[in-house]
């Protein structure tokens, strides 16, 4: 029992204190410190509180002052360093041609403005300005400078010499503003494509440049988008080709006594417009004001190639022939009744010459028989003819990137009676622009796929559009057009080495009083070259041409538009890098079929 643990005493009464086994030491008696002076303690506490408060006041004061300084000062962009500001200098990007040659760019310019309340001698200032700028009137500007107004714009752009002369006047109220100016270094070249620009909102430190017409207006936001960092807009136009086309067209227009002319050169496969010319033209550096009187169609601002909606005459015949082949109604050798005149109600359709009782489809095109085409169109029928012309783009404005394009809607008859079917088959009763014609020729003849005309250079391969006709029909149509040149109405079109195929079209001009003029025509040539392997489509149109040739006054396309188009091809084809092919086998139908097989 010695190991038996002593039982723990269990407190039965919680209030009974349990006696500790070891007695606790007694608490030491606290030695009371000597008591400080309470007044002194209070002072010290106050000092500490004051110090803390001062720290807080100082801290908040610094924050408050900084906030005040920030809100009172002018806001400024944070500077991140690097080259953020150096990349962008121009407010508006350049426009270049397809080779990168500059068509439109900016230079710095100086504007002149006046603050009359700062002027020392307003009268002397007005006199001095009138000496420097002959168009400024002394009286007007003396009156304005003394009228109490505080601000006048005087000149938008002045030359450095003029700036120096104004500076030499020594007038503190005449001030110069910095800005950029749009410059078209090539003058009137491609003026209708570029359009022009003017100042939008302006300030003494800068001025906004806005496009007025053409590409400048359509790509206004694109050109002034800072996110693009001034990357130029590359057009499909080729400057040297455009020059050659405009020069030839201008001299041709003079030679043919025409009052206007238009030419379009288009890549047949991609729809890129390599050259687009309309004469008379203007200088986009000094864009004339729109004409307020007279026919707007005679204004130099009028883009005949895009805005001019004309009846295009016999150039339409190939559409009827191609559709007839496509539908299997005829083939190139089918004989068509061309006995004229053909009667339809009170209308009579006759040919320029009588071509005898029958011609093959090819010969209907080659000899340009209205009667033959009208008969083919009647076989096709109105609904199918309409659908075919619609698939070639004749019912909508062209989608080209020019401000003028959406307004140029072709004029098509609202009802489509049989007489319309017949006349439209040879290009009367439906008016379209030369660009519509070029697009349709490209779509029909490039192997039969629809193209979309564009003014932007395309680097990537273009997906072919919707199929319009089969490659075989396209080749047969080209072969027919080629024969128009070798033995038909466009015999002056022959260019050695480049097998041009095409169709002439002569249409009487409609008179504004109704009916047609007897002695005013619009002559058109639309063609493709090289015909066996098509690369480019050309459309040349002359307005009211007339030339005395071979003993009489000539107004038909064969004598007017064709020689001009021929010279354009002769000049332009080598510039486009097309190698001439003098091989006589190039004209055989086999060459056309080879291309058709390749494009299938």
């Amino acid at each position, binding site marked *: 029992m010695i190991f038996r643990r002593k039982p723990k005493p269990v407190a039965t009464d919680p209030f009974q204190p349990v006696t500790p086994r070891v007695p606790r030491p007694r608490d030491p008696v606290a030695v009371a410190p000597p008591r400080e002076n309470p007044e002194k303690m209070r002072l010290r506490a106050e000092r500490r509180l004051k110090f803390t408060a001062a720290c807080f006041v100082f801290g908040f004061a610094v924050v408050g002052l900084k906030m005040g300084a920030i809100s009172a000062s002018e806001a400024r962009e944070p*500077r991140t*360093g690097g*080259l953020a*500001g*150096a990349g962008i*200098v*121009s407010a508006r990007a350049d426009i270049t041609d397809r080779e990168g*040659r*500059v068509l439109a*760019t*900016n*230079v*710095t310019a100086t504007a002149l403005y006046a603050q009359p309340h700062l002027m020392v001698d307003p009268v002397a200032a007005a006199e001095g300005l009138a000496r420097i700028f002959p168009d400024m009137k002394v009286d007007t500007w003396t009156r304005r400078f003394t009228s109490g107004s505080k601000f006048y714009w005087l000149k938008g752009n002045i030359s450095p010499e003029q700036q120096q002369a104004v500076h030499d006047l020594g007038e503190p109220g005449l001030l110069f503003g910095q800005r950029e100016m749009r*410059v078209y*270094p*090539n*003058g009137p*070249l491609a003026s209708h494509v570029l359009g022009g620009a003017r100042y939008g909102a302006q300030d003494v430190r800068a001025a906004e440049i806005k496009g007025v017409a053409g590409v400048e207006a359509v790509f206004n936001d694109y050109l002034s988008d800072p996110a693009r960092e001034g990357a130029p807009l590359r057009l499909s136009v080729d*400057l*040297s080709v455009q*020059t*050659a086309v405009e*020069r030839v067209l201008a001299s041709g227009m003079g030679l043919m006594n025409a009052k206007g002319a238009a030419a379009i050169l288009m890549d047949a496969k991609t729809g890129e417009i390599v050259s687009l010319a309309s004469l008379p033209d203007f200088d986009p550096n000094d864009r004339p004001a729109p004409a307020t009187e007279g026919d707007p169609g005679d204004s130099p601002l009028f883009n005949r190639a895009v805005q001019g909606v004309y009846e295009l005459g016999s150039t339409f015949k190939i559409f009827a022939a191609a559709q007839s082949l496509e539908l299997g109604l005829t083939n190139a050798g089918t004989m068509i009744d061309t006995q004229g005149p053909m009667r339809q109600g009170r209308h009579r359709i006759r040919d320029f010459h009588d071509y005898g009782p029958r011609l093959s489809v090819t010969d209907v095109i080659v000899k340009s028989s209205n009667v033959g085409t009208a008969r083919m169109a009647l076989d096709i029928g109105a609904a199918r003819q309409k659908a075919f012309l619609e698939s070639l783009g004749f019912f909508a404005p062209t989608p080209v990137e020019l401000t003028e394009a959406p307004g140029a809607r072709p004029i098509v008859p609202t009802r489509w009676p049989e007489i319309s079917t017949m006349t439209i088959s040879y290009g009367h009763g439906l008016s379209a622009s030369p660009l519509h014609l070029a697009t349709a020729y490209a779509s029909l003849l490039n192997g039969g796929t629809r193209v979309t005309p564009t003014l932007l250079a395309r680097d990537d391969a273009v997906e072919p559009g919707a199929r319009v006709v089969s490659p075989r029909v396209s080749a047969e149509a080209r072969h027919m057009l080629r024969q128009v040149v070798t033995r038909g109405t466009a015999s002056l079109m022959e*260019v*050695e*080495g*480049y097998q041009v195929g095409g169709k002439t079209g002569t249409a009487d001009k409609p008179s504004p009083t109704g009916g047609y003029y007897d002695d005013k025509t619009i002559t058109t040539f639309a063609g493709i070259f090289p015909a066996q392997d098509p690369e480019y489509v050309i459309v040349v149109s002359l307005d009211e041409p007339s030339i005395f040739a071979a003993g009489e006054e000539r107004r038909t396309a064969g004598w007017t538009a064709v020689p001009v188009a021929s010279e354009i091809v*002769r*000049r332009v*084809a*080598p*510039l486009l890098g097309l*190698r*001439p092919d003098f091989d006589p086998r190039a004209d055989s139908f086999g060459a056309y079929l080879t291309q058709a097989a390749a494009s299938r």
Partner: protein
Amino acid sequence: MRSLFYALSVAAVVGLAFWAYGEGYETRQTERAVARLEREIGQRHQELSMLRTEWAYLNRPDRLHELAEMNFESLGLIPLAPDHFALADQVGYPPPAPPEPPQTVMAWGEGAALEEKIGDVIVMTHRYGADAAPRLIAPPTLADDGEQLP
């Protein structure tokens, strides 16, 4: 021990203050330099765009055409035509030159006649015939201010 710690921290604060002060000034100086350089780059860009415009203006097709006409005597430039294309074997290459003994260097115009010097080269000028005498292309006469107009 404690006072040493205090002295060291005070010294560190003073040292860091000096360092921060110096850094601040250096940063501001660098910022100014960067701004100056950016301005300069901007100016150069502007000059470049002006020169590019000038280049485009001087090379405008109208002016080149007139210059080609003015200098027709010496340059003989005509518009490119389809019959200007040729095959590579139609080009008259000079036969390989025999090894020449070293001789004194002469100016181009001195010594033997020009025709003899380039006699081996068949000059292919289409319009003027292969037998036409080759011409030295002389610099065109200049206007008063040294520029050839237009």
